[in-house]
């Protein structure tokens, strides 16, 4: 599935800027299970890793309480630090208009509890940008898909 998919940034209902304009996030829809709606992933090139709401891992086939993580990383949570387990999982990127087959890839994803962000997944350098070359401007994200589809 070579080509590019262009995603318009989305207003997730966050407080507006001081000038009254909406905060727009670079969002992509992610399929975790065929019978479920897509969850939202926000692209963040400044994040070295990718993490997600811990609730999501049940649908990714991971029991975060009993499965052995690949490794753990310290992340700040509520003013303190928590060891965040990282697991190898598979996700699928849904096309912008949901009119093409979703693009599957594998990534290392941290499971973070007490998640209060408006999206379910934060996609960073490891897990997203090393799989999908992406150009982000003020209003859209352009994602390159490669024919070899060796995502992860």
């Amino acid at each position, binding site marked *: 599935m070579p080509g590019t998919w262009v995603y318009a940034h989305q207003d997730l209902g966050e407080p507006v800027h001081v000038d009254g304009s909406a905060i727009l996030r670079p969002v992509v829809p992610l399929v975790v299970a065929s019978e479920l709606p897509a969850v939202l992933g926000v692209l*963040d090139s400044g994040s070295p890793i990718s993490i997600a709401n811990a609730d999501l891992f049940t649908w990714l086939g991971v029991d975060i309480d009993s499965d052995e993580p690949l490794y753990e990383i310290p992340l700040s949570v509520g003013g303190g630090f928590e060891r965040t387990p990282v697991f190898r999982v598979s996700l699928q990127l849904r096309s912008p208009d949901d009119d093409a087959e979703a693009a599957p890839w594998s990534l290392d994803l941290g499971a973070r509890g007490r998640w209060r962000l408006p999206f379910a997944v934060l996609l960073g350098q490891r897990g997203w940008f090393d799989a999908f070359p992406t150009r982000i401007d003020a209003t859209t994200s352009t994602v390159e898909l490669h024919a070899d589809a060796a995502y992860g």
Partner: protein
Amino acid sequence: MRADLVERFRGRWVALDDAGDVVADSEELGSLLERLEAAGVHAHTVQRVPGADDPLFVGLG
């Protein structure tokens, strides 16, 4: 997301249909996905509506 839905569902995880209307909501993502799966409810996307006092996310702390 529409302003009326933001006001109504602040702090809740919501499932939105193709028209952008809320078809289900829950306090946590896991319980919302469980409900959608069990009921076979069709939805387009899932997101959390920011709470009124939620800090603005600018990167991993």
